[in-house]
């Protein structure tokens, strides 16, 4: 008995969607526990034994039964649509990531390009939310967001292009396939790999609007930025999208630089290795988030345009020279 391809595609997409929601829900708990440890606290503890493991479920239920407030002056259509417009690109980035050979929704031959293109679309929903709220804080935050995200998109693209250049393919499974062997991971590629990984992490922090690049959230000046007017399930969808995007970026980092599902042990351990590596990248980002203070908007722009952008372009050129002169891996 064979399953029609459309049905198996549907099943794969359905499983992936549920896996993302599940992992994202629990990664919030991980971040809270991690942050608590860094500050000598315990973190969520009382909901569920041991160590408050039911806390994310309680949060989700609570957000679901919260009253939903649409401010009277808001642009209702834009305001109500924004969480959905924000959520879709944030979760769609997972579509091209393979979690093991052949295990994924679609291993497109333009995988990396698809990821970068879709992940940049989150700014549309973000700006809709900021504008539609008709709130001064939200509007300021949305303006800052556009400014920052378009500034850091470029270093992000250029840093992600380094493994593509080394492999000669944008297909994610081909990039992982080029990292086989001892010291095969691109993060271990001499000089180029480490610099590109650091650039990727910095650009990822900024693209995810995390501290020290969180001027658009800025609790102490803009309260919570573009989502200040959101409550209940709409707020939950925005948070879900934000963490899903962050997790997607961690997965891409693990895939491009840390060898994806490659690891010791039998093949079925592959997805677990991949998840562990992605969580590792996520924890690096979280570690930075809870260690540094917010930096000013002019500093943020200066870092991107005067330092990170030229540095990544030069790095890309250097990689190009190495590849053209016969280095690199793959094909």
């Amino acid at each position, binding site marked *: 008995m064979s399953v029609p391809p*459309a049905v198996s*595609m*549907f099943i794969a*997409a*359905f499983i992936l*969607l549920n896996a993302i929601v599940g992992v994202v829900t629990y990664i919030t708990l991980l971040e809270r526990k991690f942050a608590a440890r860094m500050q000598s606290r315990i973190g969520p503890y009382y909901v569920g034994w041991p160590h408050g493991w039911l806390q994310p479920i309680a949060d989700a239920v609570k957000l*679901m*039964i*919260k*009253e*939903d*407030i649409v*401010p*009277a*002056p*808001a642009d209702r259509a834009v305001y109500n649509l924004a*969480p*959905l417009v924000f959520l*879709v690109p944030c*979760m*769609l980035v*997972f*579509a*091209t990531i393979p979690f093991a050979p052949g295990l994924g*929704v*679609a291993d*497109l*031959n333009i995988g990396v390009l698809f990821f970068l293109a879709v992940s940049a679309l989150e700014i549309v929903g973000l700006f809709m939310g900021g504008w539609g*709220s008709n*709130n*001064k*804080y*939200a509007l300021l935050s949305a*303006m800052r967001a*556009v*400014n920052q995200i*378009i500034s850091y998109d*470029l270093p992000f*693209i*250029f840093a992600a*292009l380094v493994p*593509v*250049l080394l492999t*000669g393919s*944008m297909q994610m499974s081909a990039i992982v396939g080029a990292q086989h062997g001892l010291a095969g991971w691109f993060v271990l590629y001499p000089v180029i790999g480490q610099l590109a990984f650091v650039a990727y992490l910095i650009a990822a922090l900024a693209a995810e609007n995390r501290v020290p690049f969180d001027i658009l959230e800025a609790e102490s000046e803009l309260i919570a930025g573009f989502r200040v*007017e959101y409550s*209940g*399930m709409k707020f*939950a*969808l925005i948070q879900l999208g934000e963490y899903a995007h962050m997790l997607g970026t961690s997965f891409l980092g693990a895939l491009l630089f840390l060898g994806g599902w490659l690891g010791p042990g039998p093949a079925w351990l592959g997805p677990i290795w991949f998840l562990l590596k992605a969580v590792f990248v996520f924890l690096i980002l979280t570690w930075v988030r809870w260690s540094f203070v917010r930096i000013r908007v002019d500093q943020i*722009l*200066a870092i991107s*345009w*005067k330092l990170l952008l*030229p540095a990544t*372009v030069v790095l*890309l*050129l250097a990689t190009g020279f190495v590849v*053209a002169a016969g280095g690199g891996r793959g*094909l």
Partner: protein
Amino acid sequence: MSAYLPVLIFAVLIVAFGVVSLAVARLARPSRPDVVKLANYECGAEPIGPAWVRFPVGFYLVALLFIIFDTLAVFLFPWALVLKPLGLSAFWVMAAFIGIVGLGWIYAYREGVLEWK
């Protein structure tokens, strides 16, 4: 294009997930609006006027620069795929192109476009 069908299915599922969860929340939550609750949140102060005022779009020049470098990225993607077979000649062509864009970057730097005002 059939390779993109799973992506489309996944996108539709995400939209469905968002719509369904919003609909469930709509059934589960209370709704008791009043005038004060529906006012814009400004830390307790009463908002004066709408937020939709004329706004100095400071990143206008940054956006122009972004388009230039994004175009560079568009050219870099196919270049990255064919560099290895083509070898050093393709590298020097791209190096010259990036050099020209780099001159533009230096000009923008000296004109102070990269300073945030």
